[in-house]
């Protein structure tokens, strides 16, 4: 895996990381010492900054590394991404605006703040916080893995995977600890623009360089590997991913908390309408990269990627280091680093918010100063860095499967969230929601390929009928919630009015 241009490529990536660090430093200078500013930028985020932080946070190492890798290995199946990214975009309005109204009115910071208040349960607060934190850790590890692959390949193997993982994630942790969410937003703004331009230029560049045009890539594949040009996964799996990667990821704290930070609901409405454009169409050039790599390997122009680099996730850096000038490779791999860093910082921050707010401050009943809370927040950012880096060191699987697992876990909060923010005649109850989350999470753990195998589940029970384990978990979760809600105590009239009455008034006006 020798790469002659590695000093130049690596130097450019390092310059980019220093640039991000400088932005983080300036955010630190603007930080006010209070929990709303540290965790929610005082709820003042406007359209442009929120646009780029939402899209950059959603599109992680997964978007720029894994998508290219999945296109490379499985072909156009990954264009299913359009279904889940569209849903994710419009949920910014359909869920986000409602979360914003309630968050602003009642001072919510985390997802558990809202759910525990509606279902009137501190136990639920702890359960939600623990489920979110547990399922977020592997997702953070994914970003660290992506950074490790990029540094390893860009340095021609001179920087080991583990060193890249730890060093880059530590830098992310440093600016997240110092500058709070403001640092995350400013760096996401830069990274969101950079990664979109980078992947489009890289996608067109590799296709034109190796085959003359994108059309020729498709024609070559039709000749040498036609199976990559149609979908070869169960349609039930396709459908599952559409739900998990949209509703599941939106339930995670790093996206949910972004909705609280908006300046007003009007901003969220237009984000809901326009973020699908970015979210969907970043995968077009990723397809160019992955499919060009597949055609090039089939034609013997480059070595087989998984055998050479150890993972399909190395497709983009592998192709660039073999086809592009070093300076070009450096700039575009900096874009891929941007994707990983912009999600990692948001996730570390969200993990810290969940633990500090829900477990330390609320459940621990701590009556402490704002300075103490911000200090706690910083400590938990550092803890999240350690957990993610340790897990990434062991490479627990391919990025695609880990992200799906993480989203599937958070998806179990969907019934609880619907019950709280979407008024309808039938009311979900505290007991039903608690049991639904517990049962749904356990089923997700047991029936998902990968972890289910390790827990000793028979192979034919995993991803039953082609559905992802998380979808089975959600299905059973809903059944439990509907049945138990019929027999257990509903939230008080006062609470229902506080939530549903307020949403009715805000969305449809007082007259309805």
């Amino acid at each position, binding site marked *: 895996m020798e790469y002659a241009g590695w000093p130049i490529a690596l130097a450019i990536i390092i310059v980019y990381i220093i640039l991000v660090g400088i932005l983080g430093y300036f955010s630190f200078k603007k930080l006010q010492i209070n929990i709303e500013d540290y965790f929610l930028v005082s709820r003042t985020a406007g359209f442009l900054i929120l646009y780029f932080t939402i899209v950059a946070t959603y599109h992680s190492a997964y978007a720029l590394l894994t998508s290219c890798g999945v296109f490379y290995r499985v072909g*156009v199946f990954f*264009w*299913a991404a*359009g*279904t889940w990214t*569209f849903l994710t*975009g*419009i949920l910014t*309005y359909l869920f986000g*605006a409602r979360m914003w109204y309630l968050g602003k009115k009642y001072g919510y910071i985390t997802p558990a703040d809202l759910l525990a208040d509606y279902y009137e349960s501190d136990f639920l607060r702890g359960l939600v916080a623990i489920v979110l934190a547990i399922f977020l850790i592997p997702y953070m590890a994914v970003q660290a893995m992506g950074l490790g692959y990029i540094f390893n390949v860009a340095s021609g193997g001179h920087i080991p995977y583990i060193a890249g993982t730890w060093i880059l994630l530590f830098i992310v942790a440093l600016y997240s600890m110092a500058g709070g969410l403001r640092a995350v937003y400013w760096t996401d703004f830069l990274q969101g623009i950079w990664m979109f331009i980078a992947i489009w230029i890289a996608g067109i560049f590799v296709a034109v360089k190796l085959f003359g045009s*994108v*059309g020729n890539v*498709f*024609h070559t594949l*039709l000749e040498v590997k*036609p199976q990559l*040009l*149609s*979908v070869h996964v169960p*349609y*039930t799996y*396709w*459908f599952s991913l*559409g739900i998990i990667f949209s509703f599941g990821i939106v339930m995670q704290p790093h996206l949910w908390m972004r909705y609280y930070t908006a300046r007003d*609901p*009007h901003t969220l*409405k*237009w984000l*809901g*309408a*326009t973020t*699908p*454009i970015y979210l*969907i169409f970043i995968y077009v050039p990723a*397809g160019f990269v992955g499919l060009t790599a597949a055609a090039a390997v089939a034609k013997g122009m480059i070595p087989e990627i998984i055998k050479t680099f150890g993972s399909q996730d190395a497709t983009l850096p592998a192709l660039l280091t073999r086809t592009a000038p070093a300076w070009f490779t450096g700039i575009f791999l900096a874009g891929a680093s941007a994707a990983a860093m912009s999600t990692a910082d948001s996730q570390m921050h969200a993990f810290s918010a969940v633990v500090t707010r829900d477990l330390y401050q609320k459940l621990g009943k701590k009556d402490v100063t704002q300075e103490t809370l911000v200090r706690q927040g910083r400590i938990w950012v550092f803890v999240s860095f350690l957990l993610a880096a340790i897990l990434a060191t062991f490479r627990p699987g391919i990025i695609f499967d880990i992200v799906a697992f993480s989203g599937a876990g958070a998806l179990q909060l969907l019934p609880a969230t619907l019950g709280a923010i*979407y*008024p*309808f*005649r039938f009311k979900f109850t505290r007991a039903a929601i608690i049991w639904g989350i517990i049962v749904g999470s356990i089923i997700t753990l047991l029936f998902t390929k990968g972890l289910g195998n390790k827990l000793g589940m028979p192979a034919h029970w995993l991803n039953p009928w082609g559905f992802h384990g998380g979808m089975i978990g959600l299905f059973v979760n809903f059944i439990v919630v509907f049945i138990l809600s019929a027999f257990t105590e509903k939230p008080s*009239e*006062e*609470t*229902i*009015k*506080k939530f*549903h*009455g307020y*949403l*009715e008034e*805000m*969305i*449809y006006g007082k007259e*309805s």
Partner: protein
Amino acid sequence: MSNGVIKKSHLIPRTTGGWILLIYILFCYLMTQWPVLKAVNKAVPFVLGMPFVYAWLTFWYILLVIGAILAAWKVWKP
């Protein structure tokens, strides 16, 4: 609305525009799922230089994006 009980569900559209939008989005989305996907799941003929199923999905994704923009413009509140 009285005593916190909402007479009309928030899951169901309350305007004609809302209904049209819901049906439009659902229809476009279903065009990307089984069984339609199974029927169009083939590489040839190429459309605009793209494999058939890839072009099919791209077409419906563009219509979905247009639907979201129309929704924000005409239907979604505030």
